[in-house]
């Protein structure tokens, strides 16, 4: 892919999202569109935690994004997040799309020593830092966060 996306800080991601969830990937399916011009991938996810927005009764959400592989043909849109069945991630979603492309997906992993859930930094490839009014608005690299601490920060941001 290769694409360019404006760098978004955590508060911007939260503000732009209509849903912030921790979810597990259940299925990943790619298919050509009706005109056989582009490939879309549909990701079904099981919600583990919902931090912003209403959680559907089914406990499932579906994300649809450009790119994927069908047969021998692979369509890549650089900057789009990738999903693997079984992985758990923190997602910032708007209209069933990941906000800020890869910036809106942060993978979770269990720390072997402390047994705590950690949140990896987002993939900040293709990000563009913006100059506004002559002043650089640069978003610094993220760090690994503790899930409990990050949850508390985001819930404060959304007023919960």
């Amino acid at each position, binding site marked *: 892919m290769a694409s360019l996306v404006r760098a978004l800080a955590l508060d911007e991601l939260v503000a732009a999202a209509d849903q912030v969830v921790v979810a597990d990937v259940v299925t990943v399916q790619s298919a050509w569109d009706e005109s056989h011009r582009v490939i879309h991938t549909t990701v079904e996810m099981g919600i583990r935690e919902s931090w912003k927005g209403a959680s559907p009764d089914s406990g499932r959400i579906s994300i649809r994004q450009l790119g994927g592989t069908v047969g021998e043909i*692979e369509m890549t849109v*650089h900057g789009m997040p990738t999903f693997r069945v079984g992985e758990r991630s923190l997602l910032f979603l708007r209209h069933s799309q990941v906000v800020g492309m890869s910036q809106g997906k942060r*993978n979770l992993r269990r720390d072997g020593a402390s047994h705590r859930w950690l949140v990896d930094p987002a993939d900040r*490839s*293709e990000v563009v*830092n913006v100059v506004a009014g002559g002043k650089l608005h640069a978003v610094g690299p993220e760090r690994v966060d503790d899930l409990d601490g990050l949850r508390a920060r985001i819930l404060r941001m959304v007023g919960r």
Partner: protein
Amino acid sequence: MHRRLTHAFLLGLLGLSSGNAKAYVRELTSTGAPVAWSNPCVPMHLYTGSPPPVLSTAGLFAAGMAAAGAWSFAEVACTDIRLSIVSEPAASAQVGYDSKNVIVFRQETWCRDPPRIDDAGIVVPDCYPASALALTSIFKNKNTGEILDADIEFNAVNYTWGDLVVQPALAISNTADFQNALTHELGHVLGLDHNCFTTNDGSPRGVDNTGAPEVDCYNNPELPDAVAQATMYPSVVLTDTERRSLSPDDEQGVCEIYPHAHEVCPSPSDGGCIVASGSPARTPWPDLFCAAVALFLVGFALRRSRERI
């Protein structure tokens, strides 16, 4: 510029040299095949009919030519790649897998063209994230790595595109340099990946052309200047113009993936025949087709000359 100065300052504080890495990273398919075009002559159709504000049609075309030229023979003497810009008079075009590589500006809606039609036959706008300045879609064969189609869409709904070298005053506004962005995107179109490791999405760390693991892009005080200053570095400031020209690493990448083998690439290259300079062609079928066409033309000319006698 700001990032580079900051980086140089940090290196100076740490007493580190700027490094002299000669590294680039190739994009791989999901099966691990390196990605590349089979034919080194790659036309990109730039839709200039309705340029976005600030850019003129001539300026748009000139920027496209400059960005394509930066990666191409003869500006890069050791490569065989000839990215050509074909000016299209229409305002825009659809993108997708159609063997036509397009560069378009989306000015009315930042959405896919054509829109999606759902299972009930209803047209559904398929819009992109507003934070995305540009989207590059590449279709390739996952087993061979052959690139089959590449399209670039620029977001002129939420952002302004200009020439920040000619009009540096625009740099204080929310304007990006079109030539700078296009040069980076064309590097991806040629099969180059970012030149350092950014991802935390579970993907394994890749290796560069030397077989060494990719260096970390971020939180890395030892990041060599050669990496940070390359066109294929993954993050820039909106007003950056330095990616317009290739770094030695970028040049090495395009030369090693596409080593110089042909002297001439007739225009237009789509459907045209490569005149070989003695080196074998990359793919036999286009040249066999060209040879067949050439034999037919020679035979036709001989017949006509005999008829005249």
